[in-house]
């Protein structure tokens, strides 16, 4: 039956919940496009026949093929658009650099879309408030505590906090520090917020 491959694409995305991005199914898309080409060519020839030889009994099948073409277009667009939404969510979750595993699941054009999206977002964030802008991909949760538990990921040497005490940031050591002091280091990847 027509449009089965197209619906399969939709089902594939539906199966992967939680915003996961499966590999780009280039094969299936090619098959759907091929089916569309065949349907269109059949319609072209039938339309010509109906016009020149007055075979109006061809019209129902012409209409039927046209419906299949529309359905295929709609399914493919939905598949591609839903993938874009998942890719967009990745920018907000992982930041500007995507893990390699995820990048392998994206086609070149999706990568291009992602790069353009990143750029647009960065331009917008820089323009907030008229001066240096605001990184709205940070502060995703309301600040709950003044102090947070952090683990040191790399050796960073000595670190002085407000009341004068000096902490030695050695790899794998854990500390209970004021949150605002750690933010910069967390972003740089020196410290990791430990959420128990």
């Amino acid at each position, binding site marked *: 039956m027509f449009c089965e491959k197209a619906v399969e694409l939709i089902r594939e995305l539906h199966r992967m919940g939680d915003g996961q991005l499966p590999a780009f199914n280039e094969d299936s898309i090619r098959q759907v496009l091929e089916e569309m080409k065949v349907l269109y060519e059949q319609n072209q020839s039938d339309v010509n026949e109906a016009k020149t030889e007055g075979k109006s009994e061809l019209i129902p099948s012409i209409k039927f093929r046209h419906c299949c073409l529309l359905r295929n277009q709609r399914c493919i667009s939905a598949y591609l658009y839903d993938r874009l939404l998942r890719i967009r969510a990745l920018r907000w979750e992982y930041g500007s650099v995507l893990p390699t595993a995820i990048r392998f699941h994206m086609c070149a*054009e*999706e990568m291009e879309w992602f790069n353009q999206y990143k750029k647009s*977002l960065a331009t917008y964030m820089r323009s907030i408030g008229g001066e240096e802008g605001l990184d709205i991909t940070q502060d995703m949760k309301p600040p709950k505590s003044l102090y947070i538990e952090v683990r040191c990921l790399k050796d960073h040497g000595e670190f002085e906090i407000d009341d004068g005490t000096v902490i030695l940031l050695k790899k794998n050591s854990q500390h209970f520090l004021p949150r605002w002091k750690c933010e910069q280091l967390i972003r740089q990847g020196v410290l990791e917020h430990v959420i128990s």
Partner: protein
Amino acid sequence: MSDASDLSGGEESQEEDVLTPAELITKLEEAWLNEKFSPELLENKSELVECVMEQLSHMEENLQRVRKGDVKASVHRMEIDRIRFVLSSFLRSRLQKIEKFFPHVLEKEKSRADGDPSFLSPEEFAFAKEYLANTEVYLQAVALKHMPPNLQSIDMLKAVPEPCLDSFVFLRVKEKQENILVEPETDEQREYVVDLDEGSQHLMRYRIIAPLVASGAVQLI
């Protein structure tokens, strides 16, 4: 906390009112809640955003000057973080709606009259246009250009769903309203009229009270 005004810096003047820092933050919180709970994109609040950003930098500057180790410092730091969270969350809400409804948002902006307030700031407008272009270019490149000639375009206005203005929202009344027309829910009901008393809370369809949110007469909660 008399120190709050020490660290919060001066006042911001707008065209008519002079807002104290406390009033500014209240306005921000109201705008944040309205944007969070409204199904559609609300009027843009660029001036408010600018004022809050200025306020935040005043507070950061003042915080640098405080004696190190002073307990007050950590509390004020928390306040700065909280305000920044509310502002970020507000802007994120707006951006999410712009992305979700991008063709409709752009259409609305294009067809508004010159005197009407803008829903998008110039930067949001640029972002929305880029988002539309980016998505169209992508769909063309990957699929549409390989399709039969009569199927090589998609009407974005039809393909992307519109915001559902009939969603229910919770609201609190700030200014008394009379004679609000409520449409019937079922066939047996008829349309009726309600009065909204100041301070009362209701659950209604957004569509009915949309203009009241815009005017500030009700607050979404």
